[in-house]
């Protein structure tokens, strides 16, 4: 029995690996289509909306999956994701913004006399591997990866500290407490100077740049390979985040399928029963919380790379709700569902429905209602329909491969039924 299972596992792992590689390959191909073919359709030019949406979808997929780990697989209803994303993005931005921008007066930290973090990771690696050519690429990639990991760790540490008291709460109380923490984190990052009671001042702006934006750190476009004249010879700005995100999601999937993952699901289904089965509730909850925060922060950092600039202002509860709606649309408890949900949500809200914002004429007939903001009205109605009528979301708790297996399983069960009837 065990051996058959192992064989099956090996087979499905190989299939999964092939699928992932194929996905990367396709992305790489369509991204570079414009270099291979001279007259590609406009959709495939590198600045097209398609890639903008794809990149955002890739980043949001990771964030949605990390939220799903917590809300869908562990059953902890947390609304603190915006806070973790913010921590990740700020840590990343602070660690990788070049030193030349951190100087007083001319830099982006001009208000505070320069930043107190007086180095940047990729430049530190640059001093070892060199700053141009292959060495430059190595130091960039290393710098980004290390910064991503540190961002995740910082958020995980915060999550641990927050989780200690908060995770004792249940369902909506937990949701509202985590929401509160996210707001507090945002306020601290926006605040520039805190007057201490003793008369001193704590200038947070030196670290966080206060209300000002941080910019100039490596972005997704930094991964594109250019030749000496500045022309891009290979576009990697969509593939690289895809690789990072898939790696993270694979780790999450492995975790979900491990003993820990089974414990998480047991906690979700029935806390008391799980505890009775000998699962340490506190330990598993905080583990899930920290891991989720870690990946949310990595997602937040990637998001900063996508957005090219970084500011705390948009990281309100609205953003958390957005991600929650993605998770719900995709199916609470389905990893592939979250990815599909992210795609549909972002493509709809930022691409396909955009025509609703502009007045349209069909012949001489002016289509009524179309003006700025109508897109969001239609979009929120669609969301309500999904929430009300497709309660399980697109995938429910199924994964994408399950859909292909389904028929076989059905046939098999039917077979047994008829066998029994005989």
């Amino acid at each position: 029995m065990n051996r058959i299972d192992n064989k099956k596992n090996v087979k499905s792992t190989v299939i999964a690996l092939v699928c992932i590689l194929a996905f990367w390959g396709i992305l790489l191909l369509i991204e570079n289509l414009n270099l291979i073919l001279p007259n590609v359709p406009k959709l495939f030019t590198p600045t097209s909306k398609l890639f903008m949406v794809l990149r955002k979808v890739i980043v949001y997929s990771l964030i949605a999956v990390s939220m799903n780990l917590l809300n869908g697989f562990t059953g902890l209803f947390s609304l603190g994701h915006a806070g973790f994303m913010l921590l990740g993005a700020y840590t990343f931005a602070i660690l990788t913004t070049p030193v030349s921008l951190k100087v007083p007066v001319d830099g982006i930290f001009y208000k505070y006399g320069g930043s107190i973090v007086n180095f940047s990771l990729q430049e530190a690696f640059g001093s070892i591997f060199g700053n141009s050519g292959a060495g430059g690429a190595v130091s960039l990639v290393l710098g980004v990866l290390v910064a991503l990991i540190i961002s995740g760790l910082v958020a995980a540490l915060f999550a641990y500290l927050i989780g200690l008291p908060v995770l004792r709460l249940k369902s909506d109380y937990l949701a509202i407490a985590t929401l509160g923490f996210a707001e507090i984190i945002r306020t601290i990052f926006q605040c520039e100077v805190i007057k201490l009671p003793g008369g001193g001042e704590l200038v947070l702006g030196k670290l966080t740049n206060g209300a000002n934006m941080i910019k100039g750190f490596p972005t997704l476009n930094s991964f594109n390979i250019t030749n000496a004249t500045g022309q891009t010879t290979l576009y990697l700005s969509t593939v690289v985040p895809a690789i990072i995100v898939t790696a993270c999601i694979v780790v999450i999937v492995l975790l979900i399928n491990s003993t820990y993952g089974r414990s998480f699901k047991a906690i979700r289904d029935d806390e008391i029963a799980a505890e009775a089965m000998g699962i340490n509730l506190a330990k598993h909850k905080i583990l899930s919380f920290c891991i989720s925060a870690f990946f949310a922060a990595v997602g937040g950092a990637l998001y900063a790379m996508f957005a090219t600039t970084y500011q705390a202002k948009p990281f309100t509860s609205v953003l958390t709700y957005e991600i929650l709606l993605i998770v719900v649309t995709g199916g609470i408890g389905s990893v592939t569902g979250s990815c599909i949900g992210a795609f549909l949500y972002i493509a709809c809200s930022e691409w396909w429905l955009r025509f609703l914002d502009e007045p349209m004429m069909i012949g001489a007939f002016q289509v009524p209602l179309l003006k700025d903001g109508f897109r969001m009205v239609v979009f929120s109605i669609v969301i309500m329909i999904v929430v009300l009528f497709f309660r399980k979301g697109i995938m429910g708790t199924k994964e994408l491969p399950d859909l292909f297996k389904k028929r076989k399983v059905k046939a098999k069960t039917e077979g047994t039924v008829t066998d029994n009837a005989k």
Partner: protein
Amino acid sequence: MKKLLALALALAMLGAAFVGCTPATNSGDVAEGGENVIRIGVFEPLTGDSASGGKKELLGVQYANAETPTVTLDGVEYKVEVVYSDNGSTTDKAPSAAATLVDKDVSIVLGSYGSGVSMAASDTFNQAGLAAMGITCTNPNVTKGNEHYFRICFLDPFQGSVLANFAKEKFGAKKAYLLGELGNEYDQGLLTFFEQTFTAAGGEVVKADFPTNTADFTQYLNTAKAEGCDVIFTPVSIAYATQIVSQAARLGIGLPILGSDTLDDNKVLEAAKGTDTQLFVSTFYQEGGSAAFDEGIKNYINTNADAKTANGGDDTISAVTAMGYDAYYVALEAIKAAGSADKAAVKAALPNVKYSGVSGEIAFDEIGDAIRDTAYIKTVDTAAGTWKLETVQKAN
């Protein structure tokens, strides 16, 4: 029933995808129905916090477009089409809104109202090789460190110091109360520059930040009074400014309120009307600066219901509208100088464009900022509910 609904929904989505994609993929060709078209992209907040300002700025561009809808290059007449995209006033929606414009094959981008969204979209325009021209984004970081972002307005350091000097000269102010939104780069930037000039001249400041979505300002205003401040400086976005002005009037605070270019808006005017508020704002243009423009735009607003709604329901001219109007003509000049609608050519031609607009002479320095040394300071005629010019301040 459920299946039917699912089907309908799926169809609707598919339809939306189809309709949504069509203009994006087909807009590549310049000749449409035998007509030559040049597109100018306008990147503005049409929903969200700054919608009021964004709409007025767009209005200026649209009016200019209605006035001069064509441009002649090498003897061929091109129709100029204004396409716009809504960035929702938030930096997280800005990149994809910018990509919408890039997809529509625009030759140059104008906007945005609000510096944060401009910075967030900057890289998208840069990747596409587009030149972008800020109309009223005043934060220094918009143009700093890049070669594709330009602007036709003055900068925050200038505006902040102008207002600080004005507070000193007009009111002999010794202590100023600075009130801004927490985490808003525009507010905080101006407060800093104001503080620098004001304290350098021997003044003293009391600073306070309010969290986003605050509606109750009574406590802040009372503190300003209790601390013995002589003026209140509050360069906030329109929704907050209206609250602050009306609450100050109601509480009878009696201190003069100084504001920046965002407060030059008819919603703020409406809040101050019929009260004894002393409100002073620095801005780019004052009604009466160009009689022909004033008359034209008023006529345009009054004959076009959509324009009137966009302008907040009356025909008071906002400075941002005048700036939008000028920006359109600067863009046309750049296209003329480039001799084509090609975005790279326009980008190359833009730095050398000089234009004499309704808001003054426009030329760019090496960073891409407008060479401007004039700010108009307006005050409210509370009885009539109109703006009147207080003084014109020049850089020292």
